[in-house]
């Protein structure tokens, strides 16, 4: 029975993870930049919601919405003020983009610590659980999973089925091709980064209801999101879905059968293993 429970926990967790993976994938796909500040955006949004609800007595739903909007705005500014202004090209541009988003992560993590909370906190909303037989479904987890799955599916639907979404996918596949089709690639990049950031913000805002979070966890979320999309293949959305599920299962089972330490280290070891297993040839070289 415990196996079923762990499995259910993993499925619920995967809903939030999915948001992380889809957001990072969107940014990577279109800009060819891995957003090092992804985790920073997650903790910023989570702790912002915590601060709004607990200290400012804002309703949780409004707080989540506000957090998503603010993080999206941060993403917009990051892209417009930093990434779009990097003047070198090629491999150097990739390295400088990494540094720039690392800088954004520093800013976000420390603002969160100064203004919201420096320690591990969680929101006491939506406690309790629904029970089906002996299986417990935490309310916060169910709501978060539902919101996560619905919003990431909506984004995937947008990308796959609508004209504007396809223009984003097209830009990701060939920037020159997009330009000759009259698509403004610079604007598309801005849209992708902003939307990807909003998804990171939503992931963070949902996480604060289900588990504890601290500013120092920012880097960890970046790695987590990266492992998910690396597992599924960078830029591959179906792969990201599987990656999210894999990591959720890993987190759920390792924390029960081994320890919190194992659970904490597992994504990193998995990252190293995945990269090791797939380093033949230039598959993992971005140049």
């Amino acid at each position: 029975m415990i196996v079923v429970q762990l499995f259910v926990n993993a499925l619920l967790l995967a809903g939030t993870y999915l948001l992380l993976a889809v957001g990072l994938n969107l940014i990577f796909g279109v800009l060819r930049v891995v957003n090092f500040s992804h985790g920073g955006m997650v903790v910023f949004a989570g702790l912002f919601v915590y601060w709004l609800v607990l200290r400012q007595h804002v309703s949780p739903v409004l707080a989540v919405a506000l957090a998503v909007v603010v993080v999206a705005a941060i993403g917009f500014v990051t892209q417009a003020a930093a990434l779009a202004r990097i003047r070198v090209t090629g491999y150097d541009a990739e390295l400088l983009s990494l540094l720039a988003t690392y800088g954004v992560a520093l800013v976000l993590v420390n603002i969160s610590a100064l203004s919201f909370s420096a320690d591990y906190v969680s929101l006491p909303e939506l406690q309790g659980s629904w029970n089906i037989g002996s299986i417990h479904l935490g309310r916060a987890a169910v709501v978060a999973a539902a919101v996560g799955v619905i919003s990431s599916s909506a984004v995937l639907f947008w990308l796959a089925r609508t004209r504007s979404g396809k223009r984003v996918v097209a830009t990701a596949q060939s920037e020159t091709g997009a330009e000759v089709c009259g698509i403004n690639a610079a604007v598309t990049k801005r849209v992708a980064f902003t939307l990807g950031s909003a998804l990171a913000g939503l992931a963070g805002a949902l996480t604060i209801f289900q588990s504890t979070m601290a500013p120092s966890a920012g880097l960890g979320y970046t790695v987590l999101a990266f492992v998910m999309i690396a597992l599924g293949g960078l830029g591959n959305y179906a792969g990201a879905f599987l990656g999210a599920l894999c990591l959720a299962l890993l987190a759920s089972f390792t924390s029960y059968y081994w320890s919190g330490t194992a659970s904490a280290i597992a994504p990193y070891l998995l990252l190293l293993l995945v990269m090791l297993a797939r380093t033949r040839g230039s598959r993992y070289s971005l140049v």
Partner: protein
Amino acid sequence: MAVIAVAFGAYVYADGSRYLQTIVINSVTIMVVAYSWNLISGYTRYFSFGQVAFCGIGAYGSAVFMTKLHMSWPLGLLAASAVTALAAVPLGWVLLRLRGIYFALGTVALFVALSILATNTEWVGAGQGLPMPLITDFNVILFLSLAIGAVAIATTFAVSRSRLGLRAQALGADEDAVKVLGVRTLNVKLTMFVISAALAGMAGGVAALNAGFVTPTTGFSDPLNTQSIVYTLIGGVGTVWGPLLGTGVAQAIVTQFGPSAAREVEIALGLLIIVIVTLTPAGIVGLLNRVRILRRGVIMRPRRTDRALSVAPGWLRRFAPYDGDAILDCRGVTVKFRGVTAVDDVDLRVAEDEFVAVIGANGAGKTTLFNGISGYVPRAHGTVRLAGRDVSRLDATQLARAGLSRTFQVPRLVDSLTVWENVLLGSLLDSKRREAQDRANLIIDELGLRNVAYATVDRLGPGTRRRVEIARVVATRPRVVLLDEALAGMSTEEIAEVRHAVEALRAWGVEAIVGVEHVLSAVRGLAERMIALDFGRVVAEGSPDDVLEQEAVVNSYLGGTVSEEEEAAPRAAVARRVAGEHAEMAMEVRDLVAGYGQVRVLWDISMNVRSGEFVGVLGASGAGKTTLCRGLTGACTVHAGSVRLEDVDITGRPAHVVTHLGVAHVPSSRELFPDLSVNDNLRLGSVDWSGATTERQLERVLELFPEVQPLLQRKAGALSGGQQQMVAIGRALMRQPRMLILDEPSTGLAPIIVRRLMQALRSLAEDGVAVVVVEQNAVETLRAVDRAYVLQEGRVVFSGTADQLRDNARLAKAYLGSDASAASPATELDAADSLEPRPVAAPPDR
């Protein structure tokens, strides 16, 4: 430097304030980690975001050696550094196979995993950490930290001047290209990684001694990680003095705020990173370099130019001559991409002392054949033997060491290094320093590079760059050289110089040369034997004169024989104007000078095109055809001149704006969206996806290309080259453009398809669209167009009606080079003239 360190130490010592001492010790720790980061991230360009992992190993190592094993502290410190360096070997062996973001995240993973591990391991005190031996006299630690600071600077200085540093910088710029020089890239990276780890380990040990303990948070310190990166960035990444200057300046400011403002300081550092990255990525040293301060010295610059070596027969020989049958023997080489066979079962046998030219039109598979032989792309089948030895399984580095090396179509030099350093990079293969210097000097003289020897490569014109690349490969003393279009895109004078050098190679000891060539005039007198490729297969083989007379070869170049042309009905060369739904328009180009960045490719191009005209632009590879397409559609740098569309000046406007103005561009690479369906690809070209006009236009496109109809639901990436070309043109037509510009639409297409394509374009022109087709396929183009321009070396050398051009012998010469030495005056314009390097200046520090 040691003097300054001692003097500084003496000052702080005399001051005697514990506060000042602590600040100095902390700052030096950060600086040493910054130097450590700089070695692997700045010089080798492997960005580490977890260099502090090695500080942690050093700190915990020191604690274990001193507290648990009771070593004396100096011995413990040394042992801990050694352990850190040792640990870096397997870690680097794994991590350095990753590149870019993967390496960055791999190092983050290492850092976080180790810190979690330390927090949860009782043996090292878990969260409490371990105590360090007490050193009562803080001055000892002060001088100790100044000493490791001096070691870090001295190590970086020495590395930056050494062959290790040269190789590290070169592989940081272009790892694949350095392999053809026989550089064992993993060894170089690993050595840099280990040195950087040892420095960080020492810094970690000293920091722990200073603190009196080590815990997971002080050992694997997040702020230290950040500061070391940011401070190096402030000072100048990949420079000797960057970390020192950056740490000095930043710490002078940061320490004013004290530890209570740590978070605010980190926010400021984060913002600072963004400012530096966007405004001045070269940091303080980069700014100082502009006023000629702290510029980098040239690596291993020779003191004297006289030398023991001189040009004697066989002076470039590294191996005993091979007396077997074929020195290079490739059989059944087959290369496939996505199911398309680019090179199909090609045999290439090269005898001792032979020059074999591989010729063929664009897309014939010449470069892919080289890539397949030299290990750059995997072969589906085929074996390669070099001097009797099976080298099929060797990678590019091993091949170069075995004596098979190559050049690239677009020279892949290390732009930030000087000509001397680039040549030395090759010369150092299997050589002592002095010998390598002598050889590099001699090659530089022989290839006419003496006057630019100490200029950085990014300042050179294309012809000179090509010579540098040949010099660099020759310096490795190869048995066999593969030259990929060594003579393309050069002025007549430069061609003469390079020809001279290439001719000399065999006398110097290079046993055989295989040259891929596009401009046949260039190889005619050089090659003993010629192999012609078409569609990845050998279509002719033999002496140059025989091969060039064969019909298959002439066809593959010109697209059809001239005699066949006579049966085509002669057509008035005047543009036909068929009333259409388009407004009349005209594009006028005046004195356009364009290129990429500072490099200029096009010179004073003037041309005009009106509605209903079908205009060709002809030229051999490297003539500037693609740049012209880009110049017209806003995808390259315009230096002078203008492009006007009726009354609208579109010079330098972004490509999507030009598209909106009604000019459609079909790039030579087609640029379809491979994972989207053909239907999506076509509709993405439309204005509104599914409006009434779009549906009508889609029908029209499918009428024009009925072959596309059954493919609508297929993914564009799964189509053949010809199908892709039709979809690309169809996509461009979806907007009902007033003007259509096509870049080499015939590349890789069978002659029958080319003819059909030209007919389709013809009918578009008759419908009132202005059609410009930029082509190498002269006969097929001239059969269809009204007028044409001929480009050579970036200039229009001829223009006229199709009929005038067809009879013009000069065109054939420009392609087949039947008489290279007697090039007409118009072709002697030297495009590379003003690309010659500016006066030689010392290279900037980086």
